[in-house]
């Protein structure tokens, strides 16, 4: 049994010889090289210490709220105003525009590709004169706070690979998601809450599913994966004490467990024991922190007037936006919302109204609410999906009905908050809304820019796994400096 004492790898030795959470950060401050040496080779010595003691660059934002619109919202009905497409409604999509672009199995065998203009009006808003669809009246009101990118493009053409690509930088599942990379690189700012929290909602049934790998940690240590907060009684499953066990009892149990583990640790120098103690303690702190953060009862009526009455209903997008603000106030680093229902292959004119109605007011309210609390200064809000939708109709183009297929060549997103320009529109698509003609922004460029805003050089946040170093942006990505304020 005593042999176990010497069963001590280099990493074990380093972790035993090094320091607590605070002093690790301290040591890194004194000698950043200490942690730099660990970059990309292995997990840091202490399981809970972030990889970087400080960001590579002076950060412009400290936290991100990503309002992910799952399914692929149609840019042509929302942000990318194309009067020429409307004028040519019903004409055949010219091959000179399509240029052999691959199509999904859903429209590849279509004999005709009738172009479909938006059936919804656009107006100019704010001092910036930004074109925004009349479907988004609340978003239009904050036009001067938005940084709209109309030239996003991606590589994937189907939902699962496309969402996975945006969230992890790879079309195949298994890589860490953006939030996990941030948790790994920068750690959590709130000792009582995870640094990466996920909230889900949907406005229409039967849309594309989501998978937990989208907020997974991939090959990163597993404490960095996103923690999904559910609506209802138990926001985090298995967090609450079982019936009949009170908090004092739980404390005694944890203390005893800790004593046992300290004893065990003296015999077997295993960092996993430290990690487990830390996780137990985090869960214990979360038992009070999570209900407090998720409790909307103290929010005044004026807040529900701002976000919409729907925010009173747990599990809605509006309620999640309000929760996102509460979590941002508590310094949670990465708050990821997913809102399902944007996959409109048919019945688009009707279904898109259901979707815009469910997101418009709350999305705008979140930006307004963050701003008046001073939080927009160092928070970035992102609104966008995984790809765009085609400029031609999937199926028959009718007078008041059409559908749109998946379109990776262009889509629109908006951002608001610290570090990005306000009242600014970037990039341009052609008159028919099919190809990007100016300032394209690839998904990896977007990811590189996102990390840059948080003070991370995307080429230096690495993790070595199975013999090679990985990063969020794989081998690509350029920071889009023109978006920076």
């Amino acid at each position: 049994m005593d042999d176990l004492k010497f069963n001590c790898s280099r990493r074990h030795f380093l972790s035993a010889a090094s320091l607590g959470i605070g002093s690790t950060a301290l040591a890194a401050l004194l000698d950043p090289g200490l942690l730099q040496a660990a970059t990309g080779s292995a997990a840091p010595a202490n399981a809970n210490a972030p990889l970087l003691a400080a960001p590579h660059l002076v950060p412009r934002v400290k936290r991100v709220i990503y309002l992910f619109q799952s399914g692929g919202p149609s840019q042509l009905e929302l942000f990318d105003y194309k009067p020429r497409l409307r004028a040519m409604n019903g004409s055949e999509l010219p091959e000179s525009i399509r240029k052999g672009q691959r199509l999904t199995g859903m429209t590849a065998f279509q004999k005709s590709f009738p172009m479909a203009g938006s059936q919804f009006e656009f107006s100019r808003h704010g001092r910036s004169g930004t074109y925004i669809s009349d479907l988004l009246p609340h978003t239009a009101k904050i036009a001067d706070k938005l940084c709209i990118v109309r030239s996003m493009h991606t590589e994937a053409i189907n939902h699962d690979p496309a969402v996975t690509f945006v969230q992890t930088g790879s079309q195949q599942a298994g890589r860490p998601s953006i939030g996990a990379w941030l948790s790994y690189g920068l750690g959590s700012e709130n000792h009582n809450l995870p640094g990466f929290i996920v909230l889900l909602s949907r406005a229409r049934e039967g849309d594309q599913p989501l998978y937990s790998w989208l907020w997974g940690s991939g090959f990163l240590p597993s404490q960095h994966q996103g923690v999904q907060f559910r609506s209802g009684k138990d926001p985090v499953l298995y967090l609450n004490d079982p019936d009949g066990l009170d908090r004092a009892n739980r404390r005694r149990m944890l203390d005893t467990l800790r004593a046992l583990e300290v004893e065990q640790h003296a015999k077997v120098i295993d960092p996993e024991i430290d990690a487990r103690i830390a996780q137990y303690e985090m869960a214990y702190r979360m038992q009070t922190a999570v209900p407090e953060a998720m409790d909307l009862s103290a929010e005044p009526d004026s807040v529900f007037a701002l976000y919409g009455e729907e925010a009173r209903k747990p599990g809605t997008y509006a309620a999640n936006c309000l929760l996102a603000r509460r979590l941002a106030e508590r310094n949670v680093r990465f708050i990821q919302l997913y809102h399902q229902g944007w996959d409109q292959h048919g019945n688009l004119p009707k279904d898109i109204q259901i979707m815009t109605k469910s997101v418009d007011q709350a999305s705008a309210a979140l930006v307004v609410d963050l701003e008046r609390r001073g939080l927009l200064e160092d928070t970035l809000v992102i609104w966008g999906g995984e790809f765009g939708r085609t400029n031609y109709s999937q199926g028959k183009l009718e007078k008041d009905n059409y559908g749109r297929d998946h379109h990776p060549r262009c889509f629109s997103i908006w951002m608001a908050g610290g570090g990005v320009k306000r009242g600014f529109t970037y990039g341009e698509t052609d008159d028919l809304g099919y190809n990007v003609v100016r300032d394209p922004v690839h998904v990896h460029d977007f990811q590189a820019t996102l990390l840059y805003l948080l003070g991370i050089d995307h080429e230096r946040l690495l993790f070595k796994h199975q013999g090679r170093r990985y990063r969020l942006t794989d081998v690509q990505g350029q920071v889009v400096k023109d978006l920076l304020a």
Partner: protein
Amino acid sequence: MSGVGAFLGRFHPLLVHFPIALLVLAGLVELIAARRGDRSPWASASLVPVAMLAALAAVVAASAGYLLGATGGYGGSTFVLHRLLGITVALLAILTALVAWQRRQAGGAWTWMLRALLIVTIGVLTTAGHLGATLTHGEGYLTELAPGPIRSLVGAAAPDRYTGPPERAPIYRTLVQPMLQRQCASCHAAAAPMGGLALDTPEGIQKGGDHGPVIVPEHALASELIRRVWLPPGHQDAMPPRGQRPLAPADAAVLRWWIDTGASFAATVADVEIAPDVLPGLEARLGPIARGGPTVPSITLPAVDPTQLAAAHAKGVDVSAIADGSPFLQARLDVSQPAEAGVASLAPLAPHVLWLSLAGSTVSDPVFPAIGKLRNLTRLDLSRTATTDAGLQALGGLPQLETVNLYGTKVTDAGLAALGTMPRLRRAYLWQTAVTPAGVEKIKATAPKLEIVLGDEPDAPAAPARP
């Protein structure tokens, strides 16, 4: 002068090498004669012809040099001294030849006179040669690449390399001046301004040359300097002249950008708009340029004392560097900890603290003088605290503060006055306070750049403009 004289003058750089070699040879021959005496009789015998040839070469070279100097384009103290010493060398060389001749006839005391003359001549020759080379290659050419110890020995200034944040880099000093020095100052220096133009000093650049000003601030395309630099390399007027390395496109772009943005000798990168075509070049030389990013003071600070960091941590203040390798800190107080002790623990770190959040804490009036001592604060978050007008006044006008969050505090219109005195304050959040729109209007008059966020909901959409 023109014609034959000017033509012959241009042989000066060629001819000048003959007297140099011959005079040094004369010195060597005499050295051997002195050391070996009668054992090397050829040495004393050959001195007279060598010295006579040297005198002839020196006169020819000096004459050519005089003609070259007279063709115009040269001026300044270096040139005048070079001309004087060049003629002196020629005269000394003649004298040396005469004395050598005399010694062969008479011997004796002439030997010492000859040797003294040789030493003086070679000394003056060296100086004149160096000055000539300075005219051709520019001031500091010799020591430019010398190792540190040698540089300090000859008193040459250390190369002036800018190491601060790229945004704060003075454009003229770090980008324009080194380029002009490297590319232009060999001919156009204050010491020897060819064509009357000196490009190594701000005064010289502003004054221009014999034909008038060379820069028109804000109008690069109307500037003679840009016209000359942009001409095709073979053109008669192109600068640098034919055969010399033209300006790199990135350098030319920087030069144009500098003039277009006002040709200021003090402006920094952050002061002017960065044209897209110069950005890659700027970043290649200065490193990534953060545009509009958080302000970081361009002061140097000693490293942070870790025991003081630990002391702040112990008081519930989460302190960390704002970025890797930066001496500046961000600090956030744990809301469950007393504000007074927390802020007090930052006192030893005062110059380092850039961002401070006391949001939701127990901060009260007595704490504010201590916050006011954090002179480099650019962001201060006091939201959801009991901050009062008196507290704000006790801050005493933080000179660097840019953003202050006072939402959910007891601040009233009276407290705004204290904010108005902060010279760099750009944004104040005052939602859910007693501050009134009228108070905001009043402070706008004294602090026009200060944006006050009262948190009103956006106006009902005015009749949107239809496309």
